[in-house]
């Protein structure tokens, strides 16, 4: 049952990314190109997603626990440190180079372009590398 719910969530998530245009790097790069021919489309996607999640989380997190687990697994760090900022900056640069963030990159594996596989392989290598750093943040 846990896996069924997870497939369903992944499917909804993937459909949302595709409908929102996030799986088209031209749209993503157009959104980041605010000094050129700016494409505001992703504002609508992010706005819709954040608002929906905000309302939904309020309702869900009121409960004592989720349906299929003993507790909610929420990040417990509140620290704003160099790690967070450096990571976000490096991610932003990579996002700006090709127009893929992790979700759309994975979804695009089903699209047939060979170089997406290269990007995803490199992304997995990047995850592994970051995990080898001494004070590796273990997150689940």
């Amino acid at each position, binding site marked *: 049952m846990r896996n069924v719910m997870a497939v369903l969530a992944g499917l909804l998530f993937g459909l949302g990314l595709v409908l929102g245009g996030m799986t088209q790097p031209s749209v993503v790069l157009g959104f980041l190109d605010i000094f050129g021919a700016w494409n505001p489309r992703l504002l609508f*996607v992010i706005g819709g997603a954040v608002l929906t999640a905000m309302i939904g989380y309020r309702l869900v997190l009121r409960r004592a626990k989720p349906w299929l687990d003993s507790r909610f697994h929420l990040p417990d760090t509140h620290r704003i440190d160099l790690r967070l900022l450096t990571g976000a900056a490096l*991610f932003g640069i990579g996002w700006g180079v090709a127009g893929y963030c992790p979700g759309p990159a994975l979804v695009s594996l089903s699209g047939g372009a060979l170089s997406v596989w290269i990007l995803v392989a490199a992304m997995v290598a990047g995850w592994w590398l970051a995990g080898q750093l001494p004070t590796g943040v273990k997150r689940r």
Partner: protein
Amino acid sequence: MQLWFLSVMGGVLIGLAAVLLMSALGRVAGISGIASSLVLGAKRGDRSWRWAFILGLLIAPLCLMPFVGNGGIGMPQVGWSAMAVAGLLVGFGTRLGSGCTSGHGVCGIARFSTRSLLATVVFMLFGIATVFVLRHVARGLL
């Protein structure tokens, strides 16, 4: 259908997916966290739902193919080497910074996390700066 409406609907689906994952499994729908923990040794009982979620992501465009020929997947805009560099940066950065567009940008902000809001501002700014340099500065120099 209006593009902006389709985009809002896309966003709503992403939001609903995040709410479903929280409601059912109590998990944040952060793609980089879900997937990278598979590479970095998530515990035994903690793995299958992650694979299931990724499977769902991969099925999505296949479901759309009967309606849109390519399933809504666009073509890469840069060459192989740039794709490789971008992938490495995205992977390393999202793990180091504990999240990506979904984990920080959607789920984190929806939980009013200052940490996530800050991370989102930083990766947006760096993304914008990178596109600016590559499209408008570097092109002029070459």
